[in-house]
């Protein structure tokens, strides 16, 4: 048994996982102490991970009060529900605002990482198609952000938490897609900088160069030669 498993919060983690980082940021923002346990993902997966997430065998998994919660956005909602007194609230109280937060977090989930993966994995036509989709996605997010400080308005919230860890991967996407977020999506770039000023985000996000190195490792695993 991992120390702290029955008492408090344990997160099955992987250093570069933007999905695990969503959870760590949410917990840190709320001042909820959590033990992060690094998992072996590229090699043989550990018994605790396989037992806690038998369906997907992925991180993040949040262990709390004898239960396992899987899927990062499900974990974010769980944290809101299970610790109602922990502030700041990441989801607003108004049902309509909550619906929009969920819609945009879902949009981020269906787009950025999936398209980004095709961007570095594929070449030629495949990469070109992924590039077009990525630009379209970032354009949509830029428009949705508009002139607001954060996606939900004045306060750092659910959608910001969902997207900010993926900004570490922008550098790699820019390199593979040959575009610049700063030039084409200045509001998004400014928003990323603003979020990066938060102690939690600054501490938890992977450095963009390290993400690029990691993608290099993955390419070797997949036998992809650039």
């Amino acid at each position, binding site marked *: 048994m991992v120390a702290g498993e029955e008492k408090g919060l344990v997160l099955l983690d992987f250093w570069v996982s933007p999905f695990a980082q969503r959870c760590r940021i949410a917990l840190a923002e709320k001042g909820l102490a959590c033990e992060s346990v690094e998992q072996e993902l590229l090699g043989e997966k550990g018994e605790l991970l396989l037992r806690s997430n038998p*369906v997907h065998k992925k991180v993040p998994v949040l262990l709390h*009060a004898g*239960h396992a*919660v*899987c*899927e990062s956005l*499900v*974990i974010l*909602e*769980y944290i809101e*529900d*299970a610790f109602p007194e922990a502030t700041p609230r990441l989801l607003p*109280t*108004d*049902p*309509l605002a*909550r*619906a*929009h937060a*969920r*819609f945009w977090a*879902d*949009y981020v989930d269906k787009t950025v990482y*999936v398209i980004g*993966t*095709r961007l570095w*994995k594929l070449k030629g036509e495949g990469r070109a198609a992924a590039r077009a989709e990525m630009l379209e996605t970032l354009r*949509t997010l830029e428009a949705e952000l508009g002139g607001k400080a954060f996606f939900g308005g004045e306060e750092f919230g659910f959608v910001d938490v969902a997207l900010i860890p993926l900004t570490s991967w922008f550098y790699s996407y820019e390199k593979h897609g040959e575009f610049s977020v700063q030039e084409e999506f200045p509001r998004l770039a400014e928003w990323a900088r603003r979020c990066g000023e938060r102690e939690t985000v600054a501490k938890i996000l992977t450095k963009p160069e390290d993400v690029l190195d990691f993608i290099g490792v993955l390419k070797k695993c997949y036998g992809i030669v650039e």
Partner: protein
Amino acid sequence: MHVSYSSWFKHLVSLSDSLTHMVVTVAKTLTRSHRELSWREIYTLSPAQGGDKLAYRNRAGSAEPRMSETVKLIGIFSSPLVHRAEVALRLKGVPYEFIEEDLSNKSELLLQHNPIHKKVPVLLHGDRRPAICESLVIVQYVDEAFVQGPALLPADPHARATARFWARFIDEKCWRSAWMALWAEDGEARETAAREAKANLTLLETQLQGKRFFGGDRVGFLDVAAGGIAHWLGVFEEIAGVRLLGDDEHPALCRWASDYTADEAVRPCLPDREALLAAMATKKERYVSIARAMTRKRM
């Protein structure tokens, strides 16, 4: 098409205020094979469902009646995703207007209110904007915005997380593998996907754990999310000539499908099976091309 039924509706509500017996009027004259936009498209509440105290409260607790807040659902009769939104409204006893969309010729209304995905369902609640899109987001919105009627999600945080997890599983794993099993062009890919699809249905089945519904004694969030499996999957299977969900391999899930489709709130939201079969059989080529695109994009 503009529908002004609000004064009729207010009159009906004031009648039920002074009556003590049941006023249940399902004033719909639609046939099962298609829905028409009609002023009659109103689902009225009985007093047992809180119809005598019709008041839409927001979560902050203000009891301001909002009779004029028309709820409109843009959808198509044949979509299992639209079904989710509609069942949620029914379960919560929310009167709504169904606007049938033509996806081959998308309306300004749809494009205006779902510019990102341009898909159905879309929920319009009074003049609250932007509209709400994505079926499970709509279901959760209905659960939270309308406090009358039973809660769709359980109260316990872990139970809520479990329901959300398995709803995602249905969309990301069950339907994806089922779709490939039904429509992938390569025979071997279809067979592999079929094994995966059946295994995914078995996994989902374990969540029933001897209960009548995923939600317990009553239909809940996960039942609504799984509605497509209960009524649509069999139709797809018939068109494709593939069997995925079966009594032999998934007895509990089959029993659940039968109970779900028989539920009194669910049944009016289910399109006639024959009409569904006829409508979907003509779209086989489209389904195959969706499977092709999924194969290309799968990493």
